[in-house]
């Protein structure tokens, strides 16, 4: 069906990426996608649309329906999906914050769940500063979970304003700023790439990457358990499995993540891991 002429033509305006299991597991729940299926994101990782290619009550989509989905996805609005952790949990101001966020034009959904606050908004409707200010007014402390806040340490020769502009222009960055809080960027976890961010900023960040060799990662049900198990380790921000190299890159907050806990989490998930390259 993907080989149909109308589908190939409709797919031409996109950068097309094939993601196989178990790598695809990390995309399913957070992006409300299914496999087999198609998922469209903008270049900063904001979700645009998803289409299941499985047999449903109305049958599976035909080539015409897939082509229509792709044509619509070229210009459909990209939605930011912000996840906030409330500190302390269940703080008194949480419901006021949810109401304040829901009242902002462009915000389609704001709700409190057991893991924190989840907000869906049109790209550009909210900035981290606005969210933090609203939280302060509501009397609730919040930490960003998604997009991931990244802090940089500019050197004496760093032009912080220029660095913030370069960060804002790199793929995956939703916002970047150089204010009283220092040089910071908010980046979608899916596209977190410390090396690229540090190159753009021209200075080090508070991120660290460690690679784990997982000879058994490519097959079996353990693939589905790996990402959630590692993400649950405090300080871990991103997990990037690579089917091609049978490895897992774990991105963590330099001062916060305890790397032996990552190894233990992998072992608890039933995979034999070996620590590889450090960076």
């Amino acid at each position, binding site marked *: 069906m*993907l*080989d149909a*002429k109308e*589908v*190939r033509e409709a*797919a031409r*305006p*996109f*950068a*097309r*990426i*094939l*993601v*196989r*299991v178990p*790598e*695809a597991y*990390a*995309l*399913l729940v957070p992006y409300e*996608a*299914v*496999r*087999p*299926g*198609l*998922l*469209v*994101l*903008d*270049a*900063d*990782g904001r979700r*645009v649309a998803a289409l299941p*290619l*499985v047999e449903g009550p109305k049958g599976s989509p035909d080539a015409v329906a897939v082509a229509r989905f*792709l044509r619509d*996805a*070229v210009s459909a609005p*990209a939605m930011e999906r912000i996840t906030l952790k409330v500190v302390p949990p269940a703080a008194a101001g949480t419901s006021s914050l949810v109401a304040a966020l829901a009242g902002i034009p462009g915000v389609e959904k704001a709700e409190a769940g057991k893991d924190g606050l989840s907000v869906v908004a049109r790209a550009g409707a909210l900035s981290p500063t606005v969210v933090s200010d609203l939280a302060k007014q509501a009397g609730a402390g919040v930490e960003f979970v998604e997009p991931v806040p990244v802090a940089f340490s500019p050197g004496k020769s760093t032009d912080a304003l220029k660095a913030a502009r370069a960060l804002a222009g*790199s*793929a*995956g960055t939703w916002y970047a700023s150089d204010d009283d809080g220092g040089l910071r960027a908010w980046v979608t976890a*899916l*596209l*977190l*790439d410390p090396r*690229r961010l540090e190159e753009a900023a021209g200075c080090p960040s508070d991120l660290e990457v460690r690679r784990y060799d997982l000879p058994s990662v490519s*097959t079996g049900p353990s693939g589905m358990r790996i990402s959630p198990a590692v993400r649950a380790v405090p300080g871990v921000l991103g997990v*990037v*499995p*690579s*089917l*091609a*190299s049978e490895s897992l*890159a774990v991105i963590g907050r330099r001062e916060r993540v305890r790397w032996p806990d990552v190894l233990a989490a992998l072992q608890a998930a039933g995979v034999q891991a070996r620590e590889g390259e450090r960076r």
Partner: protein
Amino acid sequence: MRKLAVAGAALAIVALGHAGAAEEAGRFTWDHEGYARLPDAATAARESGRRLLLGLSGSPT
């Protein structure tokens, strides 16, 4: 008969040379493969003003 088949294949090759091999072959093509390549693909997409189309495979291989 065999000569005709060879001539047919030669014509097909000429046709492929005229308009993108993958397009002429009628195959849907992927520019990148793998979750680990997503930051690279996103950078390429951003630089060319495109969006990302992810095919989430249902096959374990």
